[in-house]
């Protein structure tokens, strides 16, 4: 038998990336428990509220969630929900359930993540009625497709796949009735940065080539060439987590470029400091009263090093390029 290393570097790196979904869920759980925003499904993925998080972290997640939701909801309304949503690297995200509750479901909602993450999520869905009932409600027949790494229903589908294997991803999505003719929203939050620029480029290009009318929303790091960015990269390396795609995170321009050069027609990007300032300010004032923040500089630095970039292509001329903050 050939000698086999028990953990390859990429295994360790992949595992580190997988655990980031827990970080996000735990932070959101804490922030929602403090009242930053409402999410009644998080408790089914993370039972305990857990240890407190720093106020700047809570505000950062608030800006992320509100910012992404704003664009997502705008797309749904522009297409009158006659569209698809694909959440790439979805982790334990609860957007499907929010949209169901708010009556904003697209024709079909797809989630993709590593098989082990997907298996976990399916387990939660199977064992918690508040998670399964909305899926079943929207399903026409009384049987769903349930595999170890996939769940498929009329309106909700979750698939285990490696986003770096674009042809595999394409095959799996099409197997579950992905419709390239429908306007499609693709979403990735802190996902592309974990693969090489070449790999993320392939993914973004595949999206542009597959859908003629689409929007891609990417939330991740930006302005990473300064000291703060350096420290972040070092901190993460200590956790065996390498930001393989940090090169694309140099600036808002580099974030826009990666879309414009892979077949997307328009691309906009804003850092989270700007997003924070254009979110509905009454609600921002409300959340700022929830916890006192002792050092504003911490929040500022954090927000300046994350961005939302959204790219569109609009064969059907739906006015997608007008979707903005």
């Amino acid at each position, binding site marked *: 038998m050939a000698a086999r290393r028990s953990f390859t570097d990429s295994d360790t790196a992949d595992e580190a990336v997988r655990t980031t979904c827990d970080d996000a869920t735990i932070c959101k759980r804490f922030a929602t428990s403090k009242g930053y925003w409402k999410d009644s499904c998080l408790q089914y993925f993370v039972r305990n509220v857990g240890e407190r998080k720093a106020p700047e972290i809570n505000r950062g997640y608030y800006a992320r969630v509100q910012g992404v939701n704003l664009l997502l909801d705008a797309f749904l309304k522009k297409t009158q929900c006659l569209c698809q949503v694909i959440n790439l690297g979805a982790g334990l995200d609860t957007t499907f359930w929010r949209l169901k509750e708010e009556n904003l479901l697209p024709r079909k909602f797809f989630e993709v993540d590593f098989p082990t993450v997907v298996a976990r999520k399916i387990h939660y869905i199977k064992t918690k009625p508040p998670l399964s009932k909305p899926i079943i409600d929207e399903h026409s027949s009384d049987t769903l497709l349930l595999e170890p790494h996939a769940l498929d229903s009329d309106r909700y589908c979750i698939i285990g796949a490696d986003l770096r294997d674009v042809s595999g991803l394409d095959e799996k999505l099409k197997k579950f009735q992905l419709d390239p003719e429908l306007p499609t929203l693709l979403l990735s939050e802190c996902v592309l940065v974990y693969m090489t620029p070449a790999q993320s480029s392939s993914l973004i290009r595949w999206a542009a080539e597959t859908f003629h009318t689409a929007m891609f929303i990417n939330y991740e790091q930006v302005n990473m060439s300064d000291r703060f960015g350096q420290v*972040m990269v070092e901190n993460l390396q200590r956790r065996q987590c390498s930001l393989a795609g940090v090169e694309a995170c140099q600036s808002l321009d580099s974030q826009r470029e990666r879309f414009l050069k892979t077949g997307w027609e328009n691309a906009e990007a804003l850092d989270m400091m700007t997003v924070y300032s254009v979110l509905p300010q009454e609600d921002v004032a409300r959340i700022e009263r929830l916890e006192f923040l*002792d*050092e504003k500089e911490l929040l500022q630095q954090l927000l300046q090093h994350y961005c939302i970039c959204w790219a569109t292509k609009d064969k059907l001329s739906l006015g997608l390029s007008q979707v903005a903050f």
Partner: protein
Amino acid sequence: MGSHSKRCRRRRRRRISLYDICDHPDYGSEKKMAEATNEAELLKEKANNFFKEKDYENAIKYYTEALELNPSNAIYYSNRSLAYLRTECYGYALADATKALEVDKNYIKGYYRRATSNMALGKFKAALKDYETVVRVRPNDKDARMKYQECNKIVKQKAFERAIASDDKKKSVVDSLDIESMTIEDDYVGPKLEDGKVTLQFMKDMMDWFKDQKKLHRKCAYQILVQVKDVLSKLPSLVEITIKETEKITICGDTHGQYYDLLNIFELNGLPSETNPYLFNGDFVDRGSFSVEVILTLFGFKLLYPDHFHLLRGNHETDNMNQMYGFEGEVKAKYTAQMFQLFSEVFQWLPLAQCINSKVLVMHGGLFSEDGVTLEDLRKIDRNRQPPDSGPMCDLLWSDPQPQNGRSVSKRGVSCQFGPDVTQRFLEQNKLDYIVRSHEVKAQGYEVTHSEKCITVFSAPNYCDQMGNKGAYIHLRGSDLKPEFHQFTAVPHPNVKPMAYANTLMQLGMM
């Protein structure tokens, strides 16, 4: 089970049926449940009618019967709670409201009822929490908002009353301590005070002990705290010192529990001594993972060199900040709540400002929300308290300089921001040359503003393990009082997360 699930099993070939995914109640007991529910509902209606007639005894009776048939109905508990409130059985009302919420934590009326019960019982803080919940979920409910505001007023009033209560009414932890009878176990091989006194050897041993992440025996910690409380309480709120021509002093800014960076300062700049005096300008604790080690070291040196080692209070030497940002949690984890109480009392005695050679004024935050404050005013501040929401004591700990003239509302939401003209007027009126303050993280560790009349110095490098900033300290020579800046970078530290919350360092890349 029954025929129902047999159907399930037949269906399950390659695909798992719906019924396996969500728990379906057994049809048998479902029918029984439906019957019971109907009767319980009838009893509830009966109770409601009695309630309308103000016959609360009977209302309670029938709610109770309804509950016997259907014990997991939040509405029944809530209604009975209200009936109890009407009959002034506040304890029962509270119990029922709590039960209602146990059954259904999303039942908003339950929070309302519990808040009302708590108000009646004089538990205003608890009531406030529940009103907050109601207001949050029903932001348009005027009644909820009104009740919240009323309750909030009461809570604030009570807090104010406590704050202005005189000191002799408040008992010190010191009175209830019996340090002498505390014994140090034989297996404790750490540093101990020599004849109850801090010595240089003790300090060196303690710093090494801390560096190895070991804990100082609580008796020694208490001894230090009691002694330093005594020393600090004898100081004026404005400390005045003179540096002779041939002497110098080192001024450090915020250190925020970054013990290994503090050790590095002593490495670079020498240990404190009579010929190497230091002034640490507040914010010794919170945010960093080693606040206890930092503060005990600083307090130890204060005892060793009382006239050559100076400490000023920062906004983080207060209860509110310690509760949120880690120090209280750290002390409770490493020692006890009682020890934290004592720390809190000691912090209250930290002086608020220091004047060097009548020319340089040092404070943690900055200058004042109003013109006309004099050094004499600062001397007179009664500081043995938590800082008030406004006024000179608050400003000393909280304000920030701004580039433009005048004053503005502070971005922090407390105190103010003051411009170069404010600094100029203050210095002129008090015959000073410039001020040195801290309180704000700076990329280079220090910043000179207001035409060199306002200097910021910050000594916590790579603040919170994320900012990547340098730290700095200032050398001030008695000969010319010109500030000389020395920068330094962060040194590695053991991977211990701050006590307040999950390590920010870990969250950083995952947002």
